[in-house]
Structure formats: structure tokens, C-alpha cells
């Protein structure tokens, strides 16, 4: 358990952010992920890579979290507040500004496509691994990646047009 935590915790945190978990909730949701890992570790049979198994848990916990947050109309305050409109070019200046900007581009992409996009383009999984994590046929994963990319490019284009 400790080894898994040490080797994967920082990537779990990254994945949760890119999957749409708000800054104020990242600690809580990451904790849920590792409690789930602890509970299910004895069931892990090694048929999949540990990494894909962890991402599948991240996806499920993040999805449950978003659904609960929606159901209780939870109001979440993001930290830090970043006004991406202050950008003057196409490349954000700071680390936090970049994070906020990426999340802004991803926020309008529906969960299925976003998950595939994040796992392939940011987390670096192969498409076969992505399909395994999200639990869909490989061809469906390709379709979602294609659609997700289109949405990402459109969001990027809009952001450029809106910037001064």
C-alpha cells in the first residue's frame, strides 16, 4: 500500500484535477481514492496493470464525487482564483494560470470524452489501456478521443478569439 502510494499519489492528484475535481476537493477525493485502493487491494488480481487499475478507481471516485456534489448543489470555491482573461497571448504565464486554463478548456467536454482525452493526452496511457480504464470497446474509445479533441480545439480557438 505504501509503495503504491509513494509511486502513484502525485499522479492520482494530477488525474483528479484534470478529471474536473475542484481544487477545494482534491484532498478529499484523493483520500477516497486511496481508501478504496486499500479496501480493494486484495481483489487486485494483476490482470490489468496497477496503473490502469488505479486510474479506473480515480474515474469512479471522481464520477461519484461530481454526482454527489451536483445532487446536494454543493457550492465549491476554487482556489486559487485565476482570471484567465488577463492573458495577453496564447501561453499562460504561470503554473497556476496554466492549470486553470487547461481546466477551463476541459470543463465543457462531457465526462466520457474528457476521461479519454485526459488519459491519452495528459496521462500518457495507450488507447488500449484507456479503453480498459473507462470500460468501453477500443473503437468507442477512439471515437471519444476524436470527438474530445474536436471539442478541445474548439475551446482553444474560442479562448484565443476572446483574448484581447
Amino acid at each position, binding site marked *: *500500500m*505504501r*509503495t503504491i*502510494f*509513494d*509511486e502513484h*499519489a*502525485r*499522479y*492520482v*492528484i*494530477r488525474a483528479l*484535477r*484534470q478529471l474536473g475535481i475542484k481544487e477545494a476537493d*482534491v*484532498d*478529499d477525493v*484523493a*483520500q*477516497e481514492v*486511496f*481508501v*478504496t485502493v*486499500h*479496501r*480493494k*487491494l*486484495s*481483489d487486485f488480481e494483476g490482470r490489468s496493470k496497477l496503473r490502469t487499475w488505479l486510474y479506473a478507481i480515480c474515474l*469512479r*471516485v471522481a464520477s*461519484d*464525487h461530481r454526482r*454527489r456534489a451536483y445532487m446536494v448543489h454543493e457550492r465549491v470555491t476554487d482556489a486559487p482564483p485565476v482570471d484567465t482573461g488577463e492573458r495577453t*497571448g*496564447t*501561453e*499562460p504565464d504561470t*503554473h497556476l494560470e*496554466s*492549470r486553470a*486554463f*487547461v481546466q477551463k*478548456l476541459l470543463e465543457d467536454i462531457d465526462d466520457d470524452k474528457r476521461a479519454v482525452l485526459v488519459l*491519452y*493526452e*495528459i496521462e*500518457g496511457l*495507450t*488507447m*488500449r489501456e484507456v479503453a480498459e480504464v473507462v470500460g468501453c470497446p477500443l473503437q468507442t474509445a*477512439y471515437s471519444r*478521443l476524436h470527438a474530445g*479533441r474536436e471539442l*478541445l*480545439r474548439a475551446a*482553444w480557438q474560442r479562448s*484565443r478569439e476572446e483574448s484581447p
Partner: protein
Amino acid sequence: MTEPDDPPRLLDDAGEPAGLQHLLRSAQRDVGTDAEVARLAMRLGPLLGAGEAASVGGGAAASSSAAKVGAVALALLAVGGGAVWLSTRPSTPPPHVSAPPPHVSAPPHVPVPAEVPEPAELPSVVVAPVAPSAAATATVSARLDKPAPLSEAELLEQARAALKGDPSRALQRANEHARRFPRGVLVQEREVLAIQALRRLGRDAEAERRAEAFAKAFPGSAFQRQLKPNP
């Protein structure tokens, strides 16, 4: 790694906007910080292995610590088969601990029977026997006067440790968890410990009532197997 049939990633595709690639590269680098990992390790506490500091530097220390993990982390509650997905939300402890209500709700609702009053206990504090400076003495005294509240995992680790030798204490710790963390992430673990403690105390009827409540609240729990009474 990319497989032969995988499309080029946006980062590697010269046709994609440089600014978009810059953002994706930035997102790849945006892993959890040392502080975030350490904070998470603190929250998970004994689940990661008792007494081990967060190894935020990477995997080198991890492998040396791996051998220690099984006995403590997995012993907190090793489970059998079955899928468990959390449906609870972590909570923060309430500002004070009041007398136990007859029922404490958990998500889903798990009734916690009223307990007889138990002696107040504070966690033992070990202070190294070195000659402290005045400032250090003041700091230690302040800590002793007001011990930090135990985390969810720490409380349950105390319950687990006491289960065989002192099931009353184990039950007290589990019920304290129920009072302080009614919506904690370790509700299932707490209930299992409480039920096991009740059985060890010979309070079988209470144990079965609590086990039935657990079965209703967490029908798919991997802990169900563990809760079956011994034949």
C-alpha cells in the same frame, strides 16, 4: 508509450497549435506537489503503515518501507473479495465531542447503539527524554495540554490494535469514531471493528443487530464475508 495503432498524441503532432501543446505539456508536469502528497499521507495515516513518515521524495524509500506495510496497513482491515466503492464523503471533526447519541447516522445510515459511558482517554504522548530548551518545554507542554485530535485512521488503528487484548477499548475507539466522523470515509472499517469488538465482549445480540444494519447499509461490501459469525 504509444502502440502502433494509436494516433499521434496532440503533443507530438506538428499540426496542432503550439499554445495548446504548451498547455498540455504544462498539464503533464502538474503532478501533485510534495506538500499535497505529505498532506494526503497524513490523512491516510495507518493505512499506509504505522509510524512511517511520508516519503514524498519518490520511490526509493518506498521499496524499503514496503515490507513493513502488510502487517499494519493491511491489518487495519484486510478484506476478502467483492467490490467496494465509496459512497461516503470525508468529514472534518466537529468542534467538540458530545455524549453519544442513541443513533449516529452514516452514509448510508448505520445505526450506532448507545453505549455505556466509557472512561475518557487521551492518546499517549511520548516525549523524548532529552534536555529541552525553555521554548521547547513550553511547546511540548502546550501540546500535552491540548493533544491534537486523532484522525479517522488513527482512531481506527487504535481500535484495531486493541481488538484482541482489550475489546472494550476497541469498541470505545470505534464509537468515538462514529461520534466524530459520522460521515467519514472509513465508516465501513469502523463498523466492522465495532462488530468484532462486540463479539469478543460476548455481546452477540448487539453485534448481530449492528451487522444486520451494516448489511443493509452496504449490501455490496467486501466486508460482508468478514462479518459472518464463526460457525
